[in-house]
């Protein structure tokens, strides 16, 4: 413990030099800007910067990369909340209640809870990274295809929290997403499925296209259709100072729970940020006394997922630094950057280049503070976006959406897909279908299928593997409980009510 503390102290000594602070500031600023722009992720940014940083000393470069990485996670929430346009998959869950809050004039509160939640989660996760990285990494390796399959099944149960008013409508939306997920090369055999000979479809339908199409384009068409035919709901900004006392009280527990869900799932080499954010959203809805507020501007629905995605982002650094395993696109680039400097991240990195690792970790703490300082005052400014006249706001949203879709692969087909999905999204809204299950289906469907088939293939076709491996069995049981518990709970309260009624009669 003392060893770690003294190593961390020397890391801070390195990171707190004036030029390194400059690089950290540049990194978090760039990262935030990149997170706000749809279609450009932190991976591409770091790749673009690689040639620029080549002549720098590696410590400075990695401090900046770390800043970009954390900054992009912060920035992603802004467009989700204000424009209903999540730039990255990690901020889809944020858009559900965040955008409603913005429409209610509580955008500043949503942005503040996102910023503070990200800070809390980022800092706690970095502390966990500092002290437990090697232990966590070895636990993460015990996750094989069977465990990942069970995890995706658990994630699927979150759909139950997102169904909306009708079971069949919600399931139809989910199956729509699952069906879209079938498109493209089957990664296990290399076979193309449902690609209809179109090369751009070989890689499947990008989640970003579906999300921007359903949310941003669909919303725009829907709003245009209704604009002028209904009294315009005037948006009044509640306050510019951020959250009320009540909102602070509602937010702090989701921040901590989001961190607890996000960090361990981020450590898993195939974790990603979608599963933790939705698990956090479902947890908050289930634990809430007033679950009916979710989907109508519940601040917990923003606080939890935003904390979860930042904690997961920090978790990704654990396998990268301790084992040399890149588990996200950005981590893959950072690995390439390490190699550019002739460094090989792996089990020996902590002992061979402690100066580099500990300065990087120290700069993550510093970057988090910088991001909070940078983003808190901006929350009030950003929230004013909602005051832009509707025609200009939605015109801008569509231009931004088309830009994001096009820059993804530089393909016109993606634009066509975006607009088709947008029309479908508008129709779904008119006929009262929930949109999020479709997104969840597209993200989780292919993962579930692949992990299932891998696990079964490794076990030579024997299905018992899912129940004989303890972690997998526990996760599957948890998934059953999530589905069954509310039904049992309802049955119990109904019986109690009957008994009371009976008792009253006698």
């Amino acid at each position, binding site marked *: 413990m003392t060893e770690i503390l003294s190593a961390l102290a020397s890391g801070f000594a390195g990171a707190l030099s004036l030029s390194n602070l400059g690089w950290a500031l540049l990194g978090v600023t*760039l990262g935030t800007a990149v997170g706000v722009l749809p279609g*450009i992720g932190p991976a591409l940014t770091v790749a673009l910067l690689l040639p620029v940083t080549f002549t720098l000393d590696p410590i400075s470069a990695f401090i900046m990369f770390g800043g970009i990485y954390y900054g992009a996670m912060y920035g992603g929430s802004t467009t989700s909340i204000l424009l209903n346009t999540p730039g990255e998959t990690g901020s889809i869950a944020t858009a559900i209640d965040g955008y409603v809050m913005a429409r209610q004039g509580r955008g500043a509160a949503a942005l503040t809870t996102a910023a503070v939640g990200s800070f809390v989660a980022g800092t706690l996760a970095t502390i966990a990274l500092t002290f437990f990285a090697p232990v966590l990494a070895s636990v993460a390796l015990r996750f094989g295809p069977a465990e990942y399959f069970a995890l995706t099944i658990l994630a699927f149960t979150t759909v139950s929290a997102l169904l909306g008013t009708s079971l069949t409508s919600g399931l139809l939306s989910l199956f729509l997403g699952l069906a879209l997920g079938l498109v493209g090369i089957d990664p296990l055999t290399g076979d193309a499925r449902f690609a209809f000979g179109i090369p751009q479809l070989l890689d499947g339908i990008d989640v970003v296209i579906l999300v921007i199409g359903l949310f941003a384009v669909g919303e725009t068409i829907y709003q*245009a*259709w209704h604009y002028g035919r209904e009294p315009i709901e005037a948006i009044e900004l509640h306050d510019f100072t951020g959250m009320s006392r009540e909102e602070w009280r509602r937010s702090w527990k989701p921040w901590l729970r989001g961190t607890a869900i996000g960090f361990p799932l981020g450590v898993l*080499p195939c974790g990603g940020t979608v599963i933790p954010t939705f698990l956090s959203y479902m947890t908050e809805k289930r634990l809430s006394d007033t679950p009916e507020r979710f989907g109508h501007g519940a601040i917990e629905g923003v606080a939890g997922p935003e904390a979860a995605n930042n904690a997961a982002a920090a978790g990704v650094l654990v396998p990268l630094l301790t*084992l040399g395993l890149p588990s996200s696109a950005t981590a893959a680039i950072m690995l390439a950057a390490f190699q550019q400097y002739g460094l090989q991240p792996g089990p020996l990195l902590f002992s061979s280049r402690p100066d580099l690792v500990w300065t990087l970790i120290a700069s993550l703490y510093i970057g988090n503070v910088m991001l909070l300082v940078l983003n808190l005052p901006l929350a009030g400014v950003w929230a004013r976006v909602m005051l832009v006249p509707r025609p200009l706001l939605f015109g801008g949203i569509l231009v931004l959406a088309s830009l994001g879709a096009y820059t993804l692969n530089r393909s*016109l087909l993606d634009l066509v897909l975006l607009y088709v999905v947008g029309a479908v999204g508008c129709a779904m809204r008119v006929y009262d279908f929930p949109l999020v299950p479709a997104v969840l289906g597209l993200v989780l469907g292919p993962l579930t299928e692949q992990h299932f088939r891998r696990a*079964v*293939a*490794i076990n030579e076709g024997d299905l018992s593997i899912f129940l004989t491996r303890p972690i997998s069995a526990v996760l599957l049981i948890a998934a059953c409980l999530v589905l069954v518990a509310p039904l049992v709970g309802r049955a119990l309260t109904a019986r109690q009510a009957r008994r009371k009624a009976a008792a009253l009669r006698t």
Partner: protein
Amino acid sequence: MLFRACVLFAALVVIAAPAAAQPAFEHLRLVAPAAPGGGWDQTARAMQQVLQRAGIARTVSVENIPGAAGLIGLARFIGEQGNSDTLMASGLIMLGAIVTQRSAVTLHDVTPIARLTGEYEILAVPVSSPFRTLDDFVRAFRERPESISWGGGSAGGSDQILAGLIADKVGVDPRRVNYIAFSGGGEALSAILGGQVSVGINGLAEFAAQIEAGTVRVLGISSAERLPGLEVPTLREQGVDIEFENWRSVVAPPGLTPVDRRRLEAAVDAMVGSEAWRETLTRFRWIDRYLAGEAFGRFVDAEEARVQDILSRLGTGADDAPTVSSAGHYPLIVLGGLVLCAIGVVVGRVRAGTRNQERETRIPDPGSRIPATWRPIALIGAGLVLDLLLAERAGFVIASAVLFWFVARAFDPRHPLRDAAFGVAVSTSAFLLFGRVLDLPLPAGVLSGWL
């Protein structure tokens, strides 16, 4: 601006390298047919640095066109007929994809320039594995081939090709190789380290840190001789006579004039001969496999035949023996569920509708309080269609300004001039932000002269 600021900052900290006299290319464009981070992206970005530092080209840009193991990039690249200042990274994995996808576009459709690098493959197990040598492993594999799971990268890629070659050499039908394809190097490596699969196949670079730390036991490397500085036995010295490497190359668009082709070849030749390229090779642990011109073309043909042969015998790309783990059932379940839910929804809504009619109290549909007008929908639809038509022909700025104008007018028809002004402003600034500041050029179209 931020990127520019960053470049400036870097320039202040570091003294710029002295520039050479006269670069052969004013600007050279490199296409990496993969997402940032992979082997082709690294190759392209390494070339970018060396070409600039050695003064062969004044500016070099890298463009990522990811997808389908390089096929999407290849298809796009073939469309650049006669473009003489652009190169694309390619290699063995692209050949594998061409074969598995029965692709209409192949490496015969582009101009071969040179093979650049090779990377050896490693067969490894975690230290806790019962297999201590290649012999142990081969014995178990011959006994019950299906019980051995081979973890590696994407289906049809170099890892699976080597698995098939090994099976063939030790006398097992390659079709019986239980190959588990993982997406991404990190995913495969974590399955190997965690002992989720019996044996792992991956590039030497991916395994290097693990070998150094002693967390994996190497059963064999696919090089002809032992590598200096690496205490690892070859497959060949242990009786499995295979020499295999994952090679990477560069190609140019089709339809080049002989002069243009020689100019590109000379530039690559100068790059390979430079000191900076030597450094790059050692840094990434790539082997120098420079082979240019006609000889490279013949090499590609030979490799294509070898890949075609082994992949057809591995049975990829053709699903002939459906098992629980094959792709057969899942799509049926999903599509069946989709149809069932659709029927459920229709039935539910029709019933609800009739019940409401009986009661003669209709639930107010949010869209029907005032008779629907289709004008806004028509305007947005027109904007979207025009955007698609104009985006690549007239350029991004015009297309987006038109889109903005139509959308804004769908909301409120009273301010056509204001909307037009904002449309032009928004799309121009977006274009400049992406093209100039972020170096992600958007189609400029007819305005390319002005912007």
